Structure formats: structure tokens, C-alpha cells
């Protein structure tokens, strides 16, 4: 029996070695959700796939369905972001954290997630284009991806009683800013600027976001990372390895 084929646009999130010369490619597709597919012979220098299945590429792919893993049949490159990102180590590590987040937020394979796909595509494109500082792109991505998952931190109203803000204390376990009555022991006291930055990133207000300095960005990144790690069962491996130096090229 011929195995069913499907064709889709996809982002390459991760590649892993399989056997002698194959790889398992983890893809975030536009309409089929996250898919894992085998690329046969891709590590041999004669492979017809070439560089099109390297991480972070935006591709047009045809796969055949298998019982556990699908198989990559054909690939065309739409935008091979990986090539640009590899010239700049901080941006490459940032892309890795974005890809790992996308993978972790799609625990079930083949469940369509068009919004997350478009968000991830936008983030990788912005990173490759060097339009904005990598740290801001990453934190905007993480905040919005968390909001799709229903875990966006509360940044204005109290996360516990919903009393209107602004509030100064921030508690990761409570889910964001907290009013003086609800403040649990050990809550952090970030600067107003850092909270404003997070809000700007969540809302896509790049003017405000880009007017901040490195110190405020660092503070906001710390809160975003803590919030994300709290909600994921296991921490992200790539997030501590993100090189926070600003672009090197």
C-alpha cells in the first residue's frame, strides 16, 4: 500500500542524528502542527537535501506518513534563516531558545498550531534580518508564546485578586505582579521600567521596547525566563546558553 503524502510549509526546529547517515528532523508545520520526520542519507556529502534541512530554515516540504516517524521526500528552501544566524553567535543561540520553546509548547505531535507557527516564523525572520536587538526578539517571543499557552504573566492587575495596578511586587509562582495584600513572601521588586518593557513586548510596542537600556532589558529577561521555567516541567536547555552579548556583526 502506498503511504499517504502531504505537503506543507515548515520551520526546522531541531535535527538529531539517527543511525549512520540519517537525521530526525523536528518540524513546526503551518497546518500539520509539530511533526518528526526522518531524512535519509542527509549526512552524506552526496545528499540531495543539502543544507535545506539545517535548523531554523523555512521550507516547503513533502513527507510520507509512517507509523511512528514520517519520512522527508522532498524539500525546497523558502528562507534558510540558519545561514544568516550562524554568522552571529548571540543570534544563533537566541534562535535555539526560540526553537526549543516552540518544541516544548507543542507536546502533542500533529496538533495544528497556526498562531505559534506564525509567531515562530516572525521571530526567526526578525532575528535573521537583524531588525531589532536579539534579547528583545527573544523576550517578546517567549511572552507571546506563553500567552498563547495561557500563562502570560499578569503585568498590570494583581495576579491573585485582579485589583487594578500598577503594582510593584512580582511573584513568579503567583503569576505576575501582586498587590500589597496578596504579595507572597519572596516576591521580587523589579523596576517599573522593566515591567513596562515586558508589557511593551507583549503588546508589540517596539518604540517603547527599543528605548530601554541594557540594564532594564537584563532585568526583564530574568523575569521572563523565570516565569517560563516555572511553567515548563523541565527547564529549557538552551535558555541558559543564550549569549546575551549584542550582535557581533
Amino acid at each position, binding site marked *: 500500500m502506498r503511504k499517504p503524502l502531504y505537503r506543507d510549509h515548515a520551520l526546522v526546529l531541531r535535527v538529531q542524528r539517527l543511525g549512520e547517515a540519517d537525521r530526525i528532523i523536528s518540524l513546526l508545520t503551518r497546518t500539520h502542527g509539530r511533526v518528526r520526520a526522518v531524512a535519509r542519507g542527509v549526512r552524506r*556529502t552526496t545528499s540531495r537535501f543539502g543544507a535545506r534541512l539545517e535548523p531554523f530554515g523555512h521550507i516547503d516540504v513533502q513527507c510520507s506518513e509512517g507509523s511512528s516517524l514520517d519520512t522527508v521526500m522532498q524539500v525546497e528552501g523558502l528562507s534558510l534563516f540558519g545561514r544568516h544566524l550562524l554568522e552571529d*553567535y548571540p543570534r544563533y543561540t537566541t534562535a*535555539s531558545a526560540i526553537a526549543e520553546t516552540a518544541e516544548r509548547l507543542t507536546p502533542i505531535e500533529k496538533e495544528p498550531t497556526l498562531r505559534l507557527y506564525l509567531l515562530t516564523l516572525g521571530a526567526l525572520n526578525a532575528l535573521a534580518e537583524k531588525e531589532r536587538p536579539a534579547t528583545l526578539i527573544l523576550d517578546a517571543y517567549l511572552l507571546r508564546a506563553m500567552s498563547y499557552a495561557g500563562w502570560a504573566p499578569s503585568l498590570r492587575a494583581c495576579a491573585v485578586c485582579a485589583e487594578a495596578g500598577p503594582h510593584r511586587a512580582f511573584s513568579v509562582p503567583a503569576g505576575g505582579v501582586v498587590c500589597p495584600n496578596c504579595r507572597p513572601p519572596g516576591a521580587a521588586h523589579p523596576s517599573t521600567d522593566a515591567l513596562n518593557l515586558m508589557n511593551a513586548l507583549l503588546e508589540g510596542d517596539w518604540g517603547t521596547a527599543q528605548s530601554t537600556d541594557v540594564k532594564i532589558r537584563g532585568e526583564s529577561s530574568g523575569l521572563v525566563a523565570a516565569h517560563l521555567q516555572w511553567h515548563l516541567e523541565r527547564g529549557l536547555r538552551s535558555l541558559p546558553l543564550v549569549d546575551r552579548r549584542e550582535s557581533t556583526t
Partner: protein
Amino acid sequence: MYEGAIQDLIDELSRLPGIGPKSAQRLAFHVLAADTTDIKRLSAALTRVKEEVRFCVLCFNVAEEEKCRICRDPRRRDDALCVVEEPKDVVAIERTGEFRGRYHVLGGAINPLEGVGPDQLRIRELMSRLSSGETSELILATDPNTEGEATATYLALMVKPMGITVTRLASGLPVGGDLEYADEITLGRAFEGRRKL
């Protein structure tokens, strides 16, 4: 499932990289059918490799003494250092006969998704070798795939400010491949045509 020793062997073999359950079964039955002396030799080689082979204290290539054969060779140039991911890459480059300098084996490549960053590789050791000032050219011969390129980019970022010439193998190597799959002629050409970063 088989019983006893044969199943134990299948289980052990299937833990090796690139060996699936079917290959493990085929290998196990090959061992069972093979000549006893052949298998004794294989078993002795397996034991010896763990007992006698260690990593060179200078370059982390495989060695049978404190330093590997290449680090001990007085005829090799000290001013050129070639960085590779694994000992098998040293073998591949040696086969081309294009390089007469020294090596540094990183023990892998940067791969943030697998939790491998600069600190998990022998990069600190590389930096301390470079700080001696003997090296004038650092050749980055990591694999022409994403992890290898990321590692090369990171090393160039760290080493260029030290005033050392950093070069990368020519892009004649097909992207996406492993260095060990490149034939001698292609790899030799990539070495000859290396470009400055």
C-alpha cells in the same frame, strides 16, 4: 526475546550508536557463528581500548601515552593549530596529507538544544594553549553543518581579538554533511582553499 547470554549481547549491542535492534540481533548471531579465535581477538581489542587508550593531555586526541603521536612529533609545525570536533576528524585530515601542524580536539560541537555550550567542550583548554603565543594560524575544521558552523563562529569571536589569524575550511564541502564523509580529495581542497574569517 532470546534467553540469557545471547539476549544480553543483543541488549548491549543495541545501546551502541547507529545500531538498531535488528542490526544488534544480526551482529549477535554473527558473533555466535564466528570462529572462537576471531571473537577472542575482538573481545581483547574491546578491553584494551578502555584500558590502554586515553586522551592526549595537550590536544585531547586519542593517545596511548600521555601525549598523542602528533603532539610528540618534533617535525610538526607549532605555529598552525587545527580545531576539530572528534578524534576521527584528525584521521580524516591526516589522510589528506595537507596539514603538518598540530590539532585540538573539542570533544563535540556547540548544540544549545542538547545543552552543549562552550563550557561543555575543550574550549577553555584551547584558549590556554593559544595564550602561549606560539600559534599564528588557527584553522577551524569543525563539521560543515549547523553545530560545526556555530562552533566556528563562537571560536572566531573569541580568538580574533587575540590577533591570531583564524581560517575556516573552504565551503567546497557540502553543507549539512559530516567531515568524516568527505573524501580525501574534497577535504584536501577544502584545506588548501581555506578562507580567513
